[in-house]
């Protein structure tokens, strides 16, 4: 009993040490008291079997900012974002090369545990994928398996509030998550991601399957989220990228069958008003793609 306590105690202090170390260099404490880790990607390449899907990607993802990834279909945005929490390798035959740092830690280092990384870098998928459980359990499950020892009721309420879903579901927490509308399901998935208290949240076209009203709600949520989290979002909706993001990366493929590149990466304002490269300008002004 005694040893266990000490070990866990040390584990907690290690995490907070790390945050303390990283905070000043990645830019300021969050108002919500959440994490402020950014990510640094160097020469990342991702493969499906022998096919090189994306290559040579280097970018800095700033803490407490929203970074949007745009570009034509099939140019590797989703593949890339899945490399940021080691979800890419879940697909049989898929692997990634290069360096992805979360704060100071290389998530592809030998001593990095993908299960731990995925709790710290959460992910919301393109299609809402609630679990076949009650609304309450959808949110609570991730926290429970990760050894959450606080008040679960409070955690569920807080997460659902952050995801702007609480008012709509507070009277039916015990009902199945499948009974919600598509937009509500997606916000449920956001709430469930928030409940494990990640440091970075990855969103892979979270609103592409939703109607405009639900999209609006999710966008509203996002501007709240960046106060406490670092957010990376893949989107096909250029207005959405312009509205919600601070930084924008444009992914592009020159020839069919080539790997995707990060063509241009800059502050959102610059990408949408005065990009350096012609392809970027053509894309954001809707001339192709």
């Amino acid at each position, binding site marked *: 009993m005694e040893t266990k306590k000490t070990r866990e105690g040390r584990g907690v202090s290690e995490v907070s040490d790390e945050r303390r170390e990283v905070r000043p260099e990645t830019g300021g404490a969050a108002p919500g008291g959440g994490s402020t880790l950014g990510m640094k990607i160097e020469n990342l390449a991702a493969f499906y079997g022998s096919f090189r899907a994306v290559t040579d990607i280097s970018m800095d993802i700033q803490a407490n900012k929203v970074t949007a990834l745009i570009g034509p279909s099939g140019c590797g945005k989703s593949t890339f974002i899945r490399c940021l929490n080691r979800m890419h390798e879940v697909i049989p035959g898929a692997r990634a090369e290069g360096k992805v740092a979360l704060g100071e830690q290389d998530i592809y280092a030998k001593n990095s545990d993908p299960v731990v990384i995925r*709790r710290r870098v*959460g*992910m919301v*998928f393109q299609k809402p*994928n609630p*679990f*076949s459980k009650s609304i309450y359990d959808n949110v609570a499950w991730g926290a429970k*398996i990760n050894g959450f020892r606080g008040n679960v009721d409070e955690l569920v309420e807080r997460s659902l509030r952050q995801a702007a879903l609480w008012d709509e579901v507070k009277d039916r927490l015990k009902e199945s998550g499948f009974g919600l509308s598509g937009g509500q399901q997606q916000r449920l998935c956001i709430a469930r*991601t928030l409940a494990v208290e990640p440091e970075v949240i990855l969103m892979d076209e979270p609103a592409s399957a939703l109607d405009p009203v639900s999209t609006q709600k999710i966008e509203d949520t996002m501007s709240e989220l960046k106060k406490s989290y670092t957010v990376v979002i893949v989107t096909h909706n250029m207005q959405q990228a312009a509205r919600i993001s601070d930084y924008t990366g444009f992914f592009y493929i020159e020839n069919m069958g080539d790997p995707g590149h990060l063509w241009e990466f800059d502050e959102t304002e610059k990408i949408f008003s005065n990009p350096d490269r012609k392809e970027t300008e053509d894309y954001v002004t809707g001339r192709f793609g």
Partner: protein
Amino acid sequence: MAQGTQVKKRGEGTEGPQFKANMSARYGLDRVFSVVVTLAALVGIVVLAVLLVDVTRDGSSMLSANFLTSFPSQIFPENGGIYPALVGSLWLLGLTFLISVPLGLGAAVYLEEYAEDTRINRLIEINISNLAGVPSIIYGLLGLGIFVQLLAPITGGGSVLSGALTLSLLILPVIIVATREALRAIPRAIREGGYALGATKWEVIRSHLLPMALPGALTGMILALSRAIGEAAPLLVVGVALYQTYATSGPLDGYMALPTQIYDWISRPQQIFQDSAAAGIVVVMVVLLVANSVAILLRNRFQRSS
């Protein structure tokens, strides 16, 4: 403009230079086909109903509470019953369930969730599908060699445990195939959703995949167990008793079984044994119906809660 003409052409109606709708012939074919499929369904149902009615009529003279609670008798067959066979079959059913369900679930989870796509695993997969079609007597011979003879110190030779193990072998392929189908039907997004929260593989399997696969897997198990309880051939090989003076009370006991009891009766010429066999068949049917209903109730409860 070109588009406009196209649209107009398409909307011109069912008759025109390009189309001959011929609705009466198409609807005629529709009706013919619906009659054919209805007949196909009726054949099965009617034959089954006739069989049931006939058997119940033949067995009605023997069917009574006494029939269920008595030992079979050659001297006073009219007072004989099916008690030890019924108890033996229930033991077989229970033990087979306990053995085959965890093994089947485990094998299916391994093959569907853990196995890499290697040559050996593909070979295993093909073999499992083929095993589902092997005649049951072959499993009986396998059971005789392994459970009754080789493992006699553990199974007690021709015990009800050996019988249940043999029946488990027989139905494992069916359970595995059904469970795999159920697992495969779960979208990958559910697994990814779990992993993305920092769950291990086992946590995802336990909390999401198994509960979601269970209703489908149970359907396969129901079918498989129904088949097992009706099997006579493999049991005859692995040492089922055609007569014993006690009812099975432990896994290492000897046992009688309903299908072999029916087989024994039906091979005797006297009318009274024929009637006993008919009554026995009714008992088997009722046991099957009850077992299936319980399983279906269970399945529905899982479906509701998930």
